[in-house]
C-alpha cells in the first residue's frame, strides 16, 4: 500500500502543478484581454475576409469567409509539402546511391552537392532561388518558348492546360488497369508458389497501364486538347499570358529550395541504409543464384528500408514545417494567408496562432502515423 502511494503521489502533484499553471495562464490571458477590450472567440471565421490571394487551388476571393481563406492556405501548404516530398525523395535516392558509386566523378559530385546544400541556411536558399533566379529570368515579352508551348518568365511558368472530354471514362480505365494489375500479380505469385514459373509481372503491368487508357481514346470517346498560353499585351511594357496554366514563380522557387535542401538529408539516410547491410548478405544471395537485380530488390532494399524510413520521416516533417518560410517570398501558404493577413485584419492573435499551431501539429502527426504504419509493415516479422 505504502509502496503504491509513494508512486502515485508525485504523479498527482505533477499533474496538479500542470493544471494550475495552465489555469493561471488562461485566467491571466482572460483578465488581460478583458482589460484591453479584446474579445476571445472564433466567430470571426465566418466573416467576409475581404482580401484576395494570388494563388488558390479552390474557388476563392475576398467575398468568401476567413474559414475559406484558412482552407486556401492549408491546401497551398499541403501542395508545397506534397511536391517537395516527392521531389526530395526522388533526388535523395538518386544522390544517395550515387554517393556509393565506384565512379569517382559521380561519387564526388554527389558528395559536393550534399555538403553544399545542407550547409547553407534554407532561408538564404529560398531567397536565392526567388530573387537571384527571378532576376535572371526574362520578361514575358522577351521569352523564347521551350518546345513551342512552355514559357518560363519572371511572372511564372506558363504551360499548356489539358482540356478533357469524357474525363470520367478515362479515370475508369485507370481504375480498371490498377485492378487487373493486382489480379495478375496475385496470379503470378500463386503460379510461382505452385509451379515455380515466373511471369514478367513488371512489363505486363506497365503495358496494361498504358494500353487500357489509350483504348479509351480510340473507342471510348475520350479526347484531350491543349489550351496553349498566348502572350497578350496590356500596355507598352506589361504583358500577360492568356489561356494555359500559370505556375507562380513563388511556388517554383519554394519547392525547388525545399526539395534541394531536404534531398541532401534523405540522400544521407539512403546511403546509411544501404551501407548498413553487411556484405555477407549480398554474397549469400549471390551464392544461391540470385541476379544482381534480385539481390537489390529482394535482399538489400527490404533490409535497408528499415534503416532508411525512420530518419526519412523526420525529413518529411522538417520539409512540411519549413514550408512556412513561404511568407518571405509571397507564396500564399497557411502562415502568409492565415497567420499573416487574416491575423492582421482581424487582430485575433491568440485564436489564429493557436489554430495555426494546431494545424501544423495535425499535418505532422498525420505524416508520422502514415510513415510509422509503413515502417511497421516492412519491419521484420518474427514467426
Amino acid at each position: 500500500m505504502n509502496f503504491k502511494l509513494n508512486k502515485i503521489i508525485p504523479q498527482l502533484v505533477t499533474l496538479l502543478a500542470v493544471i494550475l499553471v495552465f489555469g493561471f495562464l488562461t485566467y491571466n490571458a482572460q483578465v488581460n484581454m478583458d482589460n484591453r477590450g479584446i474579445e476571445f472567440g472564433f466567430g470571426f471565421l465566418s466573416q467576409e475576409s475581404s482580401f484576395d490571394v494570388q494563388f488558390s487551388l479552390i474557388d476563392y476571393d475576398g467575398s468568401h469567409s476567413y474559414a475559406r481563406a484558412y482552407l486556401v492556405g492549408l491546401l497551398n501548404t499541403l501542395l508545397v509539402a506534397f511536391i517537395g516530398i516527392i521531389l526530395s525523395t526522388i533526388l535523395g535516392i538518386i544522390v544517395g546511391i550515387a554517393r556509393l558509386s565506384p565512379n569517382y566523378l559521380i561519387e564526388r559530385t554527389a558528395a559536393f552537392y550534399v555538403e553544399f546544400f545542407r550547409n547553407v541556411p534554407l532561408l538564404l536558399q529560398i531567397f536565392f532561388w526567388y530573387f537571384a533566379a527571378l532576376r535572371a529570368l526574362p520578361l514575358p515579352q522577351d521569352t523564347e518558348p521551350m518546345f513551342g508551348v512552355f514559357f518560363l518568365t519572371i511572372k511564372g511558368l506558363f504551360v499548356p492546360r489539358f482540356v478533357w472530354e469524357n474525363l470520367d471514362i478515362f479515370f475508369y480505365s485507370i481504375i480498371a488497369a490498377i485492378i487487373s494489375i493486382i489480379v495478375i500479380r496475385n496470379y503470378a505469385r500463386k503460379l510461382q508458389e505452385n509451379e515455380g514459373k515466373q511471369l514478367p509481372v513488371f512489363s505486363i503491368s506497365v503495358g496494361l497501364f498504358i494500353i487500357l487508357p489509350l483504348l479509351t481514346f480510340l473507342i471510348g470517346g475520350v479526347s484531350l486538347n491543349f489550351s496553349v498560353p498566348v502572350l497578350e499585351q496590356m500596355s507598352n511594357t506589361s504583358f500577360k499570358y492568356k489561356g494555359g496554366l500559370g505556375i507562380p514563380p513563388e511556388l517554383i522557387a519554394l519547392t525547388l529550395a525545399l526539395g534541394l535542401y531536404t534531398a541532401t538529408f534523405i540522400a544521407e539516410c539512403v546511403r546509411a541504409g544501404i551501407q548498413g547491410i553487411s556484405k555477407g548478405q549480398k554474397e549469400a544471395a549471390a551464392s544461391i543464384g540470385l541476379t544482381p537485380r534480385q539481390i537489390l530488390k529482394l535482399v538489400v532494399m527490404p533490409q535497408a528500408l528499415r534503416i532508411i524510413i525512420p530518419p526519412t520521416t523526420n525529413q518529411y516533417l522538417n520539409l512540411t514545417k519549413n514550408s512556412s518560410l513561404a511568407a518571405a517570398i509571397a507564396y500564399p501558404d497557411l502562415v502568409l494567408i492565415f497567420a499573416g493577413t487574416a491575423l492582421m485584419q482581424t487582430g485575433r492573435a491568440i485564436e489564429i496562432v493557436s489554430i495555426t499551431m494546431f494545424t501544423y501539429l495535425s499535418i505532422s502527426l498525420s505524416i508520422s502515423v502514415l510513415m510509422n504504419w509503413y515502417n511497421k509493415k516492412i519491419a521484420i516479422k518474427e514467426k
Partner: protein
Amino acid sequence: MFKLIKQLTSLAAVVAMLFAFTTESMAAKKSKTLKNTQKKGFVRCGVSQGLPGFSNADAAGNWTGVDVDVCRAVAAAVLGDANKVKFTPLSAKERFTALTSGEIDILSRNTTWTLSRDADIGLTFVGVNFYDGQGFMVRKNSGYTSVNDFKDGISACTNLGTTTELNMRDFFNSKGISYEPVTFEKADEVVAAYDAGRCDTYTTDKSGLAAQRIKLSAPDDHIVLPETISKEPLGPVVRQGDSVWEDIVRWSLNVMIEAEEYGVTSANADSMKTSDNPAVKRLVGAEGELGAAFGLDNDWSLRIIKQVGNYGESYKRNIADTGILPDRGPNELWTKGGILYVPPAR
C-alpha cells in the same frame, strides 16, 4: 532561422500576454504606462523597418522621421530628453500584437486609423500626423498614365497585413478588373520584386511610394499615378485602457502642430515666453498649468518644441528636404490651405 524568429515573436507575444500581471488599479492617479516609462528611463516606441521620411535608421542606428519625432516628443515631455527612446522596428504584421502585448507603449509606424482597428482589437488612435492616400507606381515606359489604363491580369505587389490589401481589392472590384496580388511581409522584398519586373505595379500609401522609390535601381524610370484610391490618415496608436498615457501622446503631437500655427520654433521657443499672446505663453509653459493634468511639470511642451521642433520643422527636416514629398499638400496647416487642425491647447 527566419521561421524560428517569426514563430518565437508570435509565441512571445502570446506568452507575454499570458504572463503580464494584472495590476490595473483604478485608484492610481498616475498612468501605469507613464510610471513604468519614468522608472525605465526611456519611451518604448514601435516604428517601421525602414521608411525614409517616416521612420528610418541610418548606418549608425540613429532613427529619424516624422513618426520617430512623435515618440521623441513624448520622451521630451515625460523624461526631459528627446533621445531617451528605444525604437523597435516592426513589420506590418507584428505591430499591433507588439503594442497590445506590452512590448512597446507607442506605435508610431505609418498606421492607418480605421474603425475596426480602433474599436475591435484593444487599440486607441490618438491623432493624425500625416494625411495620406493609396496610389500606384508604374514604370514610366509602360504607357500607363492613369489607373483607368489598367487591364485584366495586371499583377500588383504590396505589403501583407495592411489596409492596402483591402483597398486594392475594393478598387479592382469596382473597376471590374481581375488582378494578381503578390504580397510580401517586408517592404524591402516588395521593392525588390517590383524592381525585378515581377509586378506591373506597386501599390501602397503615396508617401510610402515616394519614399520607397529612392530604393529602386533606377528611381527616375518610375512614376506614381495621379489617382488616390483611399483615405489613409496615419497616426500614433496606444493601448486601450490607459487614458492618461493616451492624452500625453495625443497632446505631444497636438503641441507640435499648434506650435507651428503660432510660429513657435525650436529656435525662438525660449524668447516666446514673453510673448503678448496668451495662447503662445501657454504653449511654452509661461502661463497656465497645462502639464499638471497629465502629472507632468509645466515645461513639458516647451521641451517638445525646443528638442524636437514644431510640426513644420519636423516635416521640412524629414520629408521635404530629403526630396520625398516637397509639397505638403493636405498636410499643410488649416490656416494655409491644408487640413491640419488640432484642438487648442488650453
